[in-house]
């Protein structure tokens, strides 16, 4: 089984410090624990899962909102039909 291809670490030599946090040696790095430990395990695959799940739940939330709109429409329609029958 082929493993992931390893690319040499160039982050410390070629990276420009674009950011006040990334690559800044003065920012203290804490020991990872709890959730972060899980997220960083398995070559950070769970981060991808988290991102995919966020998108999935976001879209599901939107579908639920659309459903709520349809519920409202059904109620309005029923009211109108009841009015016409009076």
């Amino acid at each position, binding site marked *: 089984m082929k493993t992931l291809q390893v690319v040499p670490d160039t982050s410390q030599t070629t990276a420009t410090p674009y950011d006040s946090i990334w690559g800044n040696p003065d920012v203290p790095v804490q020991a990872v624990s709890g959730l972060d430990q899980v997220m960083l395990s398995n070559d950070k695959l769970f981060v991808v899962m988290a*991102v995919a799940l966020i998108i999935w739940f976001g879209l599901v939330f939107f579908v639920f909102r659309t459903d709520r709109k349809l519920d409202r*429409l059904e109620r309005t329609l029923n009211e109108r039909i009841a009015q016409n029958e009076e």
Partner: protein
Amino acid sequence: MEAKTPSAAVNVPLYRKIRLAVVVWMTVVVLAAFSFGGLWLNIPRINMLEHTARNLYFHVPMWFTMMAIAIVSAYHSFRYLQNGHVIRDVRARAAALLAVVFGILGLVTGSVWAHYTWYEGTNIWWNFDPKQSMAAIQVLIYGAYFVLRSALDDPEKRARIAAVYNLFAFVTVPFLLYVLPRQQDSLHPGAEGNPAFSDITHPIMRFVFYPAIIGFIGVFWLLYTQRVRAAQIQQRLDALDEPEL
């Protein structure tokens, strides 16, 4: 105004065909995005990024989709100003809502990605990277479209002013998402005029990345069409309440 029945504005049989295609397409995209193990679509391991390079298939298409949505929304606003058909306003509004949804998803997924790569070992989720800030402003600009709408009571005036604002919002998109972030130092690829696909992005990732963009635009189209259909029913119900001419 042409006598087009309101129900004819959405081609439902076509919608169903596209819905099936999008569901199958996205299933393959998700399988491809997570595939590894030596046989198919292996990606190189890059320090710090590692498997999160796969977020290219999820986070980045959010922004491509948002740009596509901006085009759709602006097109309908433009057509509304041309002919004043209510359906154009309905479509522009439905698209703008999804621009906000995809924008927020892009921001949140980006924040999570950054937390476990750029800001690994710190408690930081957001550090005002230029591209992030510009994207956040872009989402706020589309959010303001709804604030503006809610502030106007007269439907015709609301539709017209919202359409003009929406065209303004569209004009800001290429600058906020493309031009300005590239002129500043950013951790995002594409800064300093570099191509967004850097040398370390393995070519094989394009085989999943481009289909993912098409798939997410398809998902947008489904959600958008559902909203348009619902809004149309709403309008036909409202029209029943108006006195007959």
